[in-house]
C-alpha cells in the first residue's frame, strides 16, 4: 500500500513538473528607463521582438518561449533584486541583460550563485575576465577598442598621442585599459586629461594637449554628449591632428551633435551594424546585420543602435544553445553556449569555449571614419 502511494505521489509530481517544462522561460533585466535608457530601451525592444519572432517560427523544439523582462532603471541593487526574482520565483532557464557594467556585475553574482546561465550586454572586461562558469557577454571590451585604435594609429605612423577621458564609468574604465594596452603596443601617451561628461567646454584640456611637443594624435574615451563637445572644441581650436573616439559614440546622433563639418575625419572602432550597406557583399555579417536592421526599424520605428545589436546577438546565442542543449537544465544550456561556434551576429562572429566567454576577436571591430556627415570604412 505504502509503495502504491509513493508511486502515485511520484507520478503526480511528474505530472505537475511536466507543464513547467512546457514553457521555456527566458529572463531579462535591462535599464529601459533611467540614465542608461538610451542603451536599455533598444535592448528591451529587441529582446521582446526576438521572442515574438522565435514563437512565430515555432519556438524552441516545439515549446513556446516565455519572456519575463524587468526594468532596473539603471540601478544595480534593483538589478540584483530582479535577477533573484527571475531565478527564485519565475524559474527562468537563462538570463540576458545587464545594460551597464554595474547592473551586469550585480546580475552575474546572482547567476553564479544559483548557477543559471547569463549573457551580459555590457562592455567592461571584468565581466568575463577571469572567466566565470555561468556568465557570458556579447559586446567587445574597451580593451579591444584600445587595441583596435592603436593598431590603426600605428598603421598611420602615429605613436605619440594625447589621451582625454570622460570621468564617467565608461570613460574612466576605457582610459585605464588604454593606458595598460599602450605599454605593450608601442604607443606613448604624452598627455592625459579628463573632463566631466556634462561639461560645456573642454578647450582648456585640449589646449594643453595641443601644446605637448611631438604629439601626433588624440584619443577621447567616453560616451554621450561629452565626445560631441570635444569634437566641436577641437574644430574651434583649429587642431589638425587626427582625432579618435571610442565605440561609445558609434551612432548617427554623434555626428548630429558634433556637426558634420566638425566631425569630418574623426575615426572610431564600431560594429558592422552601423555600416551594413557599406559592407562587402561577401561579408558574412552583411545579411545578419541588414535583416536585424530591417526588422528592428519596422518593429520599433527607430533607427537601430549598437546596443540593440548586443541584445540581438545574446538572444541568437541563447536560442541556438536552447535548441542544441539536450535538456533545459542550466548546466546543459551553459555547455551548449560554450559550444557556440562560428555564430554570426551583428557585433561579430562568436566562438565561445570553456576559457573564452567573450568569443570575439579584433576582426569584429571595424575602423570607421566620419566623412561628409556619414560613415566610411577604413580599409
Amino acid at each position: 500500500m505504502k509503495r502504491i502511494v509513493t508511486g502515485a505521489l511520484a507520478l503526480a509530481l511528474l505530472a505537475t513538473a511536466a507543464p513547467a517544462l512546457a514553457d521555456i522561460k527566458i529572463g531579462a533585466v535591462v535599464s529601459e528607463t533611467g540614465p542608461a535608457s538610451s542603451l536599455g530601451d533598444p535592448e528591451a525592444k529587441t529582446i521582446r521582438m526576438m521572442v515574438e519572432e522565435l514563437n512565430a517560427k515555432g519556438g524552441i523544439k516545439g515549446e513556446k518561449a516565455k519572456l519575463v523582462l524587468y526594468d532596473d532603471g539603471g540601478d544595480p541593487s534593483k538589478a540584483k533584486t530582479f535577477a533573484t526574482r527571475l531565478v527564485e520565483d519565475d524559474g527562468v532557464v537563462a538570463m540576458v541583460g545587464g545594460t551597464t557594467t554595474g547592473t551586469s556585475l550585480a546580475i552575474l553574482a546572482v547567476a553564479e550563485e544559483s548557477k543559471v546561465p547569463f549573457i551580459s550586454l555590457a562592455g567592461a572586461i571584468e565581466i568575463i575576465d577571469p572567466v566565470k562558469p555561468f556568465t557570458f557577454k556579447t559586446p567587445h571590451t574597451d580593451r579591444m577598442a584600445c587595441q583596435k585604435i592603436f593598431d590603426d594609429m600605428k598603421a598611420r605612423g602615429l605613436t605619440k598621442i594625447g589621451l582625454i577621458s570622460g570621468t564617467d564609468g565608461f570613460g574612466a574604465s576605457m582610459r585605464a585599459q588604454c593606458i595598460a594596452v599602450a605599454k605593450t603596443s608601442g604607443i606613448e601617451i604624452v598627455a592625459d586629461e579628463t573632463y566631466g561628461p556634462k561639461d560645456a567646454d573642454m578647450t582648456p584640456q585640449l589646449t594643453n594637449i595641443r601644446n605637448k611637443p611631438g604629439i601626433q594624435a588624440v584619443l577621447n574615451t567616453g560616451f554621450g554628449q561629452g565626445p560631441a563637445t570635444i569634437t566641436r572644441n577641437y574644430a574651434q581650436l583649429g587642431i589638425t591632428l587626427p582625432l579618435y573616439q571610442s565605440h561609445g559614440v558609434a551612432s548617427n546622433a554623434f555626428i548630429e551633435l558634433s556637426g558634420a563639418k566638425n566631425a569630418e575625419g574623426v575615426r572610431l572602432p564600431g560594429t558592422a551594424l552601423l555600416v551594413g550597406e557599406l559592407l562587402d557583399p561577401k561579408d558574412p555579417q552583411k545579411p545578419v546585420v541588414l535583416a536585424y536592421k530591417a526588422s528592428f526599424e519596422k518593429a520599433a520605428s527607430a533607427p537601430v543602435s549598437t546596443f540593440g545589436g548586443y541584445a540581438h546577438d545574446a538572444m541568437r546565442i541563447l536560442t541556438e544553445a536552447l535548441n542544441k542543449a539536450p535538456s533545459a537544465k542550466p548546466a546543459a544550456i551553459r555547455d551548449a553556449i560554450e559550444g557556440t561556434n562560428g555564430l554570426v551576429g551583428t557585433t561579430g562572429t562568436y566562438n565561445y569555449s570553456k576559457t573564452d566567454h567573450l568569443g570575439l576577436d579584433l576582426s569584429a571591430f571595424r575602423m570607421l571614419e566620419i566623412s561628409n556627415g556619414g560613415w566610411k570604412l577604413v580599409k
Partner: protein
Amino acid sequence: MSDLLQFLVSGVTVGAVYALVALGFTIIYNASDVVNFAQGEFVMLGGMISVAGVAAGLPLPLAALIAIALTAAIGVALNTFAIEPARGTPVVSLIIITIGASIFIRGVTQIVLDKGTHRLPSFSGDDPIRVLGATVLPQSLWVVAGAVAIFVALWLFFTRTLMGRAVLATSNNRLAAQLVGINTRFVMTFSFALSAAIGALAGVLITPILPTSFEIGITLALKGFAAAMLGGMGNPKGALAGGLLLGLMEALTAGYISSHYKDAVAFFVILAVLFAFPRGLYGSNPVERV
C-alpha cells in the same frame, strides 16, 4: 599668453551658463525664501521644447518664444498646484517639493518629448572668432550677452520698479506685505512665471553649446546653485559674479593644475568662501527692523 586667454574664454563661456541658471534661482528665492531645485528643469525645458519646435518645422525664434511661454506656464502650475497648497509649512518642506517637482518634470519630459540628446543650431554660425591667438565661438558671445542682459534687467526690476520691491517685501514679511496692500499671491505666481521664463531663455541660449536632454537639469541646477551660493543667494549681482567665478576657477584649474581636480578645486573654493563669508560674496546681513 594665448593659452591664458583661451582658458579665460572657456571660463567665461561656462561661467555665463552657470550665471544664467543662478539668476533664475534669485527670483523665486527673493519672493519666497525657497531655493527652487526645479530651476535646472526650467532650463532643460527651454532647450527641449525649442528643439521639438524646430524639429516640427518652426523657425527658431518662434520655437524659442513658445518654449519660454510654455515653461513660464509650467512654472505657474508648479506654484499653484505644489507650492501654494503647502504654504505655511517650513521652507525645507517647500524645497523638498521643488525637488519632487524636478523629478516629475524630468519623467514627463522623457515620455512626452524623448530620451535623446539634442542640439540647436548656433544663432550666428559655428565659425570661431580669433582674438589674440585664442578662439571664441559666436554662441559664447550670445550666452555672455544674455547673462549680462538678464542681470541688468533683474537689477533694475528689483531696485527701480514697484513690482520688484513688492517681491522683496513679500519675501521679507509676507503678512506685513499683505497689510500694506501687496497681493502676495500674485507676487508668488509672477515670480515663478518670471523665473521659469528666464530659465527657459537660458536653455535656448546654451543649447547650441551644451546639448540638451531630459536629465541635463540636475547638473545645471547643482552648478547654478553653487554659483548662487558663492555670490550670495537672492542677489542678481551675486549670481552673475558667482557663476563667472565658478566657470573661471574650473577652466583655470583644468588649464594650469590638472583637469582631474577641476571640480574638486571649484567646490573647495566655494567651501572656503562660505567659511569666510557665510552669506556669499554679495550676501547682505539680515537686518531685523522692529
